[in-house]
């Protein structure tokens, strides 16, 4: 696998002195879909804006397909498409003209067939001669995507593409992303919806307070999420685990009233039956049992609250 985007120690301090990015390192492979999660003000948009050239980095380096975004900005930017978080469009222009303009601005020769392809793919072809102000919010967002795709970028940044979009359109958006991925486009998107990251991303990153707290394969995250926690509550507190239970990976709660057992729901044998039998055999009286499944949301909230809360 070759990496298409390499971010090294990227820092951004705004003019007011606020440090929005505190040394981000990220390596993205060609054809990947990366979802960036993070609370409001985490620095997601700042990260994207800095990579795309809208803000200047205070320190660090970004390379797109080997091209530095400062010294080789033409080559680097020609490969990037950006769909901003906010809808910025000229209200009185037609759909087709704005999309054509984007292609030319990025230095590509006009290609009506290509523009038609893109507009059809985004179900905008019927609206090609409409003025932007006559479109619905969801259509406007798709116009932004069409503009970003007009110059056939290899890396596409989607900043909250499904914010304020209804369920159906969100599914459409996911389809579009999947289709682009099949076409070999690398996609970095930000979102506040964990199920969105689960649905379409290959890797999931979590940003909080300008730091990338985690970037992990979705599969291995799912594995972590697939873990379930069984809490066996016992009637009389104990000081230590009985020796007869040492074969299990058990944890005793601090008040001595619960045994915590973690297992994989997808494993063939969870070991629960044997554990419960052994607990009874050890002479412990069961008061209650409780199970809990950890989700990406838990991981996310934990991360953001603990590590992100240090500064």
């Amino acid at each position, binding site marked *: 696998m070759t990496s298409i985007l390499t971010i090294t120690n990227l820092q951004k301090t705004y003019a007011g002195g606020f440090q929005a990015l505190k040394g981000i390192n990220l390596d993205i492979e060609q054809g990947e879909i990366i979802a960036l999660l993070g609370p409001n003000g985490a620095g997601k948009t700042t990260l994207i804006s800095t990579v795309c*050239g*809208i803000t200047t980095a205070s320190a660090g380096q970004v390379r797109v397909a080997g091209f530095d975004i400062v010294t080789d900005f*033409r080559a*680097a*930017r020609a490969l990037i498409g950006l769909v901003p978080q*906010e809808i*910025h469009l*000229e209200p009185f222009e037609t759909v087709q003209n704005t999309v054509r*303009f984007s292609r030319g601005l990025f230095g590509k020769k006009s290609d009506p067939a290509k523009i038609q392809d893109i507009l059809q793919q985004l179900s905008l072809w019927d609206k090609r001669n409409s003025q932007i102000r006559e479109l619905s919010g969801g259509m406007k967002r798709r116009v932004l995507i069409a503009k970003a795709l007009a110059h056939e970028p290899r890396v596409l940044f989607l900043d909250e593409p499904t914010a304020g979009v209804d369920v159906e359109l969100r599914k459409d958006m996911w389809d579009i992303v999947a289709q682009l991925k099949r076409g070999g486009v690398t996609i970095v998107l930000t979102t506040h919806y964990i199920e969105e990251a689960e649905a379409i991303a290959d890797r999931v990153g979590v940003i909080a307070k300008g730091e990338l707290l985690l970037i992990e394969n979705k599969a291995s995250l799912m594995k972590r999420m697939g873990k379930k926690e069984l809490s066996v509550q016992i009637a009389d507190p104990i000081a230590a685990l009985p020796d007869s239970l040492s074969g299990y990976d058990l944890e005793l709660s601090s008040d001595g009233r619960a045994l915590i057992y973690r297992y994989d729901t997808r494993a063939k044998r969870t070991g629960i039956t044997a554990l419960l039998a052994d607990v009874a055999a050890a002479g412990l009286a069961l008061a209650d049992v409780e199970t809990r499944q950890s989700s990406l949301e838990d991981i996310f909230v934990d991360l953001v609250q603990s590590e992100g809360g240090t500064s």
Partner: protein
Amino acid sequence: MNWTAIKSIYMFEMARFFRTIAQSLISPVLSTSLYFVVFGAAIGSRIDQVEGVSYGAFIVPGLIMLSVITQAISNASFGIYFPKFIGTIYELLSAPVNFLEIVAGYVGAAATKAFIIGVIILVTAFFFVEVQIAHPVAMLAFLVLTCLSFSLLGFIIGIWAGNFEQLQLVPLLIVTPLVFLGGSFYSISMLPPVWQAISLFNPVVYLISGFRWAFFDTADVPIGLSLVAIAGFTALCLVVIGWIFRTGWRIRS
């Protein structure tokens, strides 16, 4: 140079102009006609010839300059302020273009619009008065340079402006007085000596004088000086734009 990008910006801006061509042209034509009626016919009938030219004809170069300067500034400042205001500037900043290409596209379009309006006013003038053009090539050159340099100034104003009031402020408070006091409607030689001396600090005097020379072969200041003045002004604007380019002032955070 990313010529395709420059062309795209230029065509996009010109399309906006042509979409509203009626509005774009009616107001300068109408106001010029009013000037001719008021100054040329009503007042001009009481004024003898100025430097051997009938008053109605004498004000033609000044009127053209007045419109061209105003139009160049407002077109260029609005042209770049608008994307900042509605946020579409994100696309310019993320495109593989440098600042000079952005300037070329926007200033080129603004200057073209101002030029078209200048020519139309000249044509309108022919309906009201008899105008002869002594040095047609010089006249065109002056017109083009004025369109360009004041579009550059407009571009700078558009980058600087943080709101619509500021966008109007410079043209209203500085440019309009300079143009009116720059001899659009009179010859500097008609002023008392003190005011003549003060007028020489007004850069627009040199422009209008040079432009009038191209028409009537008479000038308030030597033509060479006029050329130096407009070249200097253009150079100054370019220096400021170069500085904005290097620092990203008011564009990139």
